[in-house]
């Protein structure tokens, strides 16, 4: 019961901050709201006894959103939101699509047969089990992820770099 309460609390926080992301006019507030939303998701992981992923999520998102805030201030036309610009389009269709997507996912959550609930796993066993998974069965996937990150880094730099003779 305590687990459900904490999961629900962090879940509500994640939903509230996710809503704030698209409601506030200030881009810095928007980035901070996304940071808190993702940190609350990390809190949910911790409440669901997934310690390693919870800590990883909070650490990763803290740095990722700090970088995102800088880019948002750089590239937005009205980063402070003082001009009162409307930065949305096809609002009605988006609301309908969002509501339908959420309803479909909720229907699956409530009506699918999930089977018996598994007993809890101790944190030490989890870290050991994940380590064995990464180093044995999923090693190829993990290595592929590493190579993909390297490729994306090179591609992102190549796209963003200033071309000679263009300016």
């Amino acid at each position, binding site marked *: 019961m305590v*687990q*459900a309460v904490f999961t629900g609390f962090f*879940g509500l926080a*994640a*939903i509230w901050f*996710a*809503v704030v*992301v*698209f409601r506030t006019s200030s*881009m810095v507030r*928007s980035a901070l709201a*996304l940071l808190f939303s993702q940190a609350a*998701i990390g809190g*949910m*992981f911790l409440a*669901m*006894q*997934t310690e*390693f*992923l919870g800590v990883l*999520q909070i650490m*990763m998102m803290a740095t*990722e959103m700090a*970088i*995102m805030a800088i*880019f948002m201030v750089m*590239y*937005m*036309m009205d980063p402070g939101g003082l001009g009162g610009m409307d*930065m949305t*389009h*096809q*609002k009605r*269709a*988006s*609301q309908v*699509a*969002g509501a339908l997507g*959420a309803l479909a*996912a*909720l229907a*699956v*959550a409530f009506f699918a047969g*999930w089977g018996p*609930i*598994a*007993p*809890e796993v101790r944190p030490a066993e*989890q870290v050991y*089990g*994940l380590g064995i*998974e*990464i180093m044995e069965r999923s090693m190829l996937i993990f290595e592929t*992820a590493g190579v*993909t*990150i390297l490729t994306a880094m090179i591609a*992102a*730099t190549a*796209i*963003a770099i200033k071309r000679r003779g263009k300016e």
Partner: protein
Amino acid sequence: MITLIVALVVGAILFGIGLYGALSQTNLVMIMMGVEVILGGAMVNLVAFWRFLHPEVYSGQMFVLIVMTVMALEMAVGFGVATGRFRAKGSVEMEEAQDLKG
């Protein structure tokens, strides 16, 4: 069972909010934020499935690690594209990106 349902409901609502954000925003950076929220909802579901249905199979946690990688890659490539676009046109507004059509 209650915690599983709570987590799935939160995941579903986050998915809906993210979908709305990704479709309604005109700025590239805000669209990426919508995608981040969608992926956040997916991760909540994956962790809940792992913890409450199959904690003995660690591919669930592995899947979450891959989704986190995808989030970071999406940000890196997205910002690369944003920087290129900003250099070329001085804006990352998607309504002004009609010239990208073939």
